[in-house]
């Protein structure tokens, strides 16, 4: 779609051969490393990933039941300044998401103030009335957020999507870094890259900080997985392993008298904090889907009784819903009293007549999405759509405008990527991870860069041929430079 002319993270606006001044060293490295050497290192990386079993399962694809996500060796790099700006915005946004969730399942002041139309909440399938009135321990809802961002120019970062339920990908952030240190050690001599390997410690600290008050000095923390057939199982086990906590399946847990226990060889052990990687729907068959075999009967009752912390809290889906997304700037302003530092992608709510008129007049330039759609379904990509598709969407929009939003097609930034024809720009997005504990919100200095490996493609999704890259966050070199104290984490203590 939009390839030529996009801003390149390394090459800037000048195209190949015109490296941004900050990245002169990286440019030399790209020039001086023979293409065949890139190929050899990529093969080595692939062999390592396969040997470690860093795979994701593709459902319904017997031949490729276990695939490796393609890895690219050219990193995406953030300068210290870029990172400081981005992480400020992320901390602010996640703070607002937490305040919003606490409010919407509690006092609902934001509705009383008229900032959001109430039907957007109450008629939203992501709103969980089962949870209303149940406050998670210490009022933290979204402990782990993955905020998907895109960049379109030197100073233009946008949030594309908030993931406040169970965002995945952090194991790739860590493994990609491991691979880079082994394959391209020379880059780390050239650049001072902030370390990401403290993530598991930060996560455990986050979990322990939100343990229910009755948990005692050493709260028992576990990671709850649907099992080893789940596509993200590698990540689940990786995280449990690196935190030194048990990786449990639902069958390992039993709820008795509103207390959660796990079955061990020595009998039952009380569980205080659960990092659950199971969706709300499958969490507790007594409250959500009764047909689910993945869930733990009675878990929500124990949660309501305040005996266990669930990470992330159930009901969070209302905060990362597409319809709510369009109100994020207002939500941030309502709770933080300031404008959002990280803007949304411009979004037209078709429920509003003025917006609807604009959308109908510009269908050929816009991306139109169903508010409750996902995975590319119920979507119109104007610039590549046929006349018939456009007319079909026009009719649907006029019939039920409240079901749609529309956004301009973005010129996503690119990063040089190893291709068969040598280095070439490929579009990327970026998922940083934000952790919120009892008294802090922190951004890990790094994240997951996803890259669309097909020329010109904007699809970075792993199941559709997307790959990953390491994401370098450079340490500030100048004394007293921005974020001098952010060696390990960035963010604010609350």
């Amino acid at each position: 779609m939009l390839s030529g002319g996009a801003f390149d993270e390394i090459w800037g606006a000048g195209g190949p051969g015109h490296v941004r001044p900050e990245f002169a060293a990286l440019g030399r490295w790209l020039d001086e490393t023979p293409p065949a050497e890139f190929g050899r290192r990529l093969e080595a990386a692939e062999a390592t990933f396969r040997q470690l079993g860093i795979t994701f399962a593709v459902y319904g694809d017997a031949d490729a039941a276990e695939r490796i996500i393609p890895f690219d060796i050219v990193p995406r790099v953030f300068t210290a300044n870029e990172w400081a700006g981005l992480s400020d915005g992320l901390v602010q946004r996640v703070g607002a998401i937490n305040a919003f969730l606490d409010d919407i399942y509690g006092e609902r002041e934001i509705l009383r103030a008229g900032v959001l139309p109430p039907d957007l909440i109450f008629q939203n399938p992501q709103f969980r009335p089962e949870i209303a009135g149940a406050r998670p321990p210490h009022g933290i809802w979204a402990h782990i957020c993955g905020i998907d961002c895109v960049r379109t120019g030197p100073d233009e970062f946008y949030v594309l999507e908030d993931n406040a339920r169970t965002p995945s990908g952090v194991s790739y952030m860590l493994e990609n870094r491991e691979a880079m240190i082994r394959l391209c050690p020379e880059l780390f001599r050239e650049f001072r890259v902030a370390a990401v390997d403290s993530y598991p410690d930060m996560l455990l600290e986050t979990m322990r900080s939100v343990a229910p008050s009755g948990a005692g000095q050493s709260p028992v923390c576990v990671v709850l997985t649907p099992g080893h057939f789940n596509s993200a199982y590698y990540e689940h086990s990786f995280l449990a392993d690196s935190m030194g906590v048990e990786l449990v399946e639902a069958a390992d847990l039993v709820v008795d008298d509103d207390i959660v226990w796990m079955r061990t060889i020595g009998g039952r052990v009380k569980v205080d904090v659960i990092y659950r990687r199971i969706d709300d729907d499958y969490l507790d068959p007594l409250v959500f889907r009764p047909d689910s075999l993945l869930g733990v009967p009675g878990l929500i009752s124990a949660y309501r009784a305040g005996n266990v912390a669930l990470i992330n809290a159930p009901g969070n889906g209302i905060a990362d819903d597409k319809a709510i997304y369009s109100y994020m700037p207002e939500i941030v302003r309502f709770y933080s009293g300031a404008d959002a530092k990280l803007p949304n992608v411009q979004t037209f709510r078709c429920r509003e007549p003025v917006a609807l008129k604009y959308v109908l007049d510009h269908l050929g330039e816009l991306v139109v999405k169903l508010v409750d759609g996902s995975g590319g379904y119920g979507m119109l990509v104007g610039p590549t759509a046929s006349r018939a598709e456009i007319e079909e969407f026009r009719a649907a929009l006029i019939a039920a405008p409240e079901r749609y939003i529309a956004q301009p097609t973005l010129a996503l930034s690119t990063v040089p990527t190893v291709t068969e024809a040598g280095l070439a720009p490929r579009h990327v997005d970026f998922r940083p991870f934000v952790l919120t504990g009892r008294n802090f919100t922190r951004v890990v200095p790094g994240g997951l860069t996803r890259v669309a490996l097909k020329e010109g493609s904007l699809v970075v999704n792993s199941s559709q041929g997307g790959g990953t890259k390491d994401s370098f966050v450079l340490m500030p070199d100048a004394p007293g430079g921005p974020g001098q104290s952010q060696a390990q984490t960035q963010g604010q203590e609350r």
Partner: protein
Amino acid sequence: MLSRTASSLYWLGRYIERADFAARLVEATIRLDALSPSPAGVAAWRSALSVTYSDKAFAATEREVTAASVTRFLTTDTGNHGSIAACLDQARNNAKAVRTALTRDAWTAINRAWLIFNARGRPASTMAPLTLVEAVKAETRGFEGATHWMMRNQATWFIRLGAAIERADNTARLLDVKYHLLLPKGEQVGGTVDRDQWTTILQVVSAVTAYRWMYSEGLKPSLVIDLLTTRFELPRSLAGSVEEVVEVMTLLGKRTGLHGEADRMARARLTTMQRTRSHDVIVKGLHQYLNAFIRENELLHAAIARQFRFT
């Protein structure tokens, strides 16, 4: 430790041991086949099937018993539950379920062994059988080495416990097959083929040199039986496996404070073993003795599963 984790670790130990045993068996049978005139060669392959209790499953494939068909059945055939490929698959599934309890080294060792059979296009199927079993043995040794450097805690002990229970079973079955393995017509007990068969059995358990060290006499069936049943010095002997089970259960009990029926059974078996003389075993009937041992081993397995609440 989660009960499910304990169970998976235990089965992981069993399946790795089983894969290793199958590899050794194939290797030894190839040798026996090569050393013998052809009728004995086929008998060797038949015996390999009966040691692994897979003669019926093989018959169901309606293939003829040949070196090639049985080798394939015992190594790469995933339709055979006892094949090396199937054992490694099971081992890896268990390892995956308990990845958090394994070190990266231990996991990679299992995954590497599994990849030999499951890498794209299954190159293993074109590897020469001897190269293949060598590779499997090397990888299982790698896994044992890796577990040796895991923390000395429950995780390691459950793996070792499963391996020891499995090893006891394998050695008993291996010895028992000599009872079923008929000598070709015209061959004498104590003749060349008979000797080859006993040597092969020693070879399966890597005990040819051990035999020379232990006994000054030449190869005698009664001494091979002695070595493989009551000699504690040989890790793969019945006595060695029985002792290993008790050692591991003692360590587990110390750490977890969990003692029970399985401990009592394991100790009782050890005491009996210490009093057992191989001469008496032979006089009373090796086949009967081995069958009783295998049954007792199964009962002990069931008691372990109960004691640690395996799910």
